[in-house]
């Protein structure tokens, strides 16, 4: 058994709102080559197993795992696919290495959202086909209901949600890979069109295309492959009820459970004290506030106040989504969690350029799989 596992190579391509000149395979190949070069490994010789994350309906192909091996160097090798977020993929690679049977494992996730002609209809097809689909709910409509419930229960305000948008899109201006950097005010965010009250269009992440590949290695290999291995301290993931009727609409309990598992592995009792930087899901602005509370950084109802006070800004107490998050980088479908983890790795390596946060030793990445799921994952990393 290998106890300790590190991320030793990362590569990405993107992120842009449309990529007509590149196929998903070309994007993945580019990201994979960057990750393998970063780690100094030859995928045909040094990588023992490959994990990809993908959903059939996002790709327009059934059993999409068929189309994953060639562009990551995995043909006729041990490759498998998870229908999860990128953080589920990293957790899978982490488990594979810990078994002791594998030394080096690669993880791949991508988004080619611009290829999907009918994305809102496709997402709506994730609802219960018997009880919910006949009601013709749009996914944003369900998010609006959830936001309303969260604001009511927690006492948070639409202005506080808008402050998340202002912060994340401003952060994105310093991230050369981010597609949606902008300098906005709270008033400008709130003045945007309403999708499903109280959820506004400007509080909803636009989609982007891109691919991310990471290489993980067991301790003995990690130290020889990288000067700056980024260690996995904990990985947790969980589902709550998939049913719209029976779930808790105000709390991200899946994130609470996932965080509890990850903190236990990492030996973290006081997350706010231990964690120096966090990248959390912000497909919708209110989800960032909900996540900060579910992760135990503050009590319910406090995340909004902390955000307007600037506590979660890039140069403050707990920098959250310094990368720009999904609001700033774009919603990357199944690769969202990988994008969150990617930023944490850059920050812990001290390679985040203009947006580098000082004195960071422990970082946390969290993800959610979007409406209508209750699937969340948490990863804790350290340098």
């Amino acid at each position, binding site marked *: 058994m290998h106890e300790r596992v590190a991320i030793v190579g990362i590569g990405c391509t993107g992120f842009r709102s449309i990529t007509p000149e590149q196929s998903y395979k070309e994007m993945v190949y580019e990201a994979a080559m960057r990750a393998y070069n970063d780690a100094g490994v030859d995928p045909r010789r040094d990588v023992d197993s490959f994990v990809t994350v993908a959903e059939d309906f996002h790709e327009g192909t059934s059993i999409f*795992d068929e189309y994953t091996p060639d562009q990551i160097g995995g043909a006729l090798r*041990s490759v498998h696919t998870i229908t999860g977020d990128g953080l589920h993929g990293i*957790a899978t690679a982490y488990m594979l290495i810990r078994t002791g049977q594998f030394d080096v494992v690669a993880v791949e996730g991508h988004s080619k959202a611009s290829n999907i002609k009918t994305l809102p209809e496709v997402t709506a097809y994730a609802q219960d086909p018997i009880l919910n689909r006949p009601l013709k709910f749009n996914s944003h409509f369900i998010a609006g209901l959830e936001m309303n419930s969260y604001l009511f229960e927690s006492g948070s305000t639409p202005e506080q949600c808008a402050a998340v948008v202002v912060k994340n899109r401003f952060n994105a201006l310093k991230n050369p890979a981010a597609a949606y950097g902008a300098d906005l005010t709270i008033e400008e965010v709130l003045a945007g069109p309403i999708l499903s009250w109280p959820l506004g269009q400007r509080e909803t992440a636009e989609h982007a295309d891109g691919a991310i590949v990471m290489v993980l290695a067991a301790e003995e290999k990690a130290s020889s492959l990288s000067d700056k291995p980024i260690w996995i301290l904990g990985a947790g993931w969980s589902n709550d009820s998939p049913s719209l009727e029976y779930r808790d609409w105000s709390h991200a309990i899946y994130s609470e459970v996932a965080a509890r598992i990850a903190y236990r592995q990492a030996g973290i009792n006081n997350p706010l004290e231990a964690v120096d930087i966090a990248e959390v899901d912000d497909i919708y602005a209110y989800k960032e506030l909900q996540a900060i509370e579910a992760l135990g950084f503050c009590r319910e109802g406090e995340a909004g106040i902390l955000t307007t006070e600037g506590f979660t800004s890039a140069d403050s107490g707990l920098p959250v989504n310094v990368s720009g998050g999904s609001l700033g980088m774009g919603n990357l479908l199944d690769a969202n969690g990988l994008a969150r983890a990617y930023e944490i790795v850059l920050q812990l390596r001290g390679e985040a350029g203009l947006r580098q946060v000082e004195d960071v030793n422990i970082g946390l990445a969290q993800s959610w799989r979007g409406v209508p799921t209750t699937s969340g994952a948490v990863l804790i990393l350290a340098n």
Partner: protein
Amino acid sequence: MGMRKVAVVGAGMTKFVRRAQETAKELTWEAAHMALDSCEMTMDDIEAVCFGTAPDAFDGVHLNGEYVSDGAGAWRKPYMRSYVGGGTGVFVPIQGWYHIASGLFDVVMVVAEEKMSSYYPHAQAAFLTIFDHTTERPLKPNLLWIFAMEMNRYMTTYGLTKADIAQVAVQHKRNAANHPCALLGDANITLDDILKSEVLAWPVQRFDVSPVSDGAVAVILAAEHVAKRITDKPVWIEGVGWHLDTTFWTNRDLAYPRYVEYAARMAYDMAGIKEPRKQINIAEPYDPFDYKALHHLEGLQLADRGKAAELYSDGTASLTGNMPICPSGGLLGVGNPIAAAGLMKIAELFWQLRGEAGARQVPGQPLHGLAQAWGDLMQVGTVVIMGR
């Protein structure tokens, strides 16, 4: 530090039927409940859930794994769905294995479900969407034609006759007569019945193919210290292997499944099996078509190339032979709800190795069994070796 040992401690399966009245969630929960009951556990004992089902297109539900999650018992628990097409059924227990072998979990439930009858009028049409959207889909490929091509290639390469291959269907369907969950068991079926069945796409005839079915299977996996508390007869997962070949299947050698060979070698290495033909006492190769069982036995190194049919003609493969093959009745006899059919083979090895397989129990207290599945664009091999 050595590897953490992982055991199967419980199993349950629903009947495999042509058209289940239950929803996918209900089928899943039925199997999960039976598996829990079989080892006197409740959901409180389960730390994480692994779920397998083949394409979302069958159910017409996007993020189908998320939709079925509560049926699989994953409420407020770590939950992941993996998929490698038809290989999924033997891959989910591998996923359960690495959950436990990693040291992160001690007890994991593995559930596989397939409901193909929702697809109207026939699940075959869903398979059109597995092909490349630019180069292949416009040709409207049908899986039966593709496998007719592969079967023909296999027969031509080794000079095999239809009768050589049809023995497989006869034996598997006869074995299935003793399986309480089987859809197509028939104790009296003859070689003539197979050879005279309707031609679908020559050389594939109706009885050469497994039926489209609905069903679910679940198994409970536990780490060594837990397994020994739960049961006196844990069945250990001794080796696992999986390999995925290139997407470009049209360039593949159709007569020999190298991806199965590589997956098998990975599993044999891990299990420390040096002479598979002597050490594997029961084999459950994947048999959606009768020739596929032969194809896979060769890939698994349990027969020389082109010689697997001899295992059936000389009696080696029969229930009382030296290496019984598909004592469950396989997909040809029990049915083929894709992901569930693979996990059914794991459940069969569990029952056989514990001596609990009832009327289809193979004699001689077998020590090691092997289950294998295959899928995608004739592309993936998944192998699990289990032992007492």
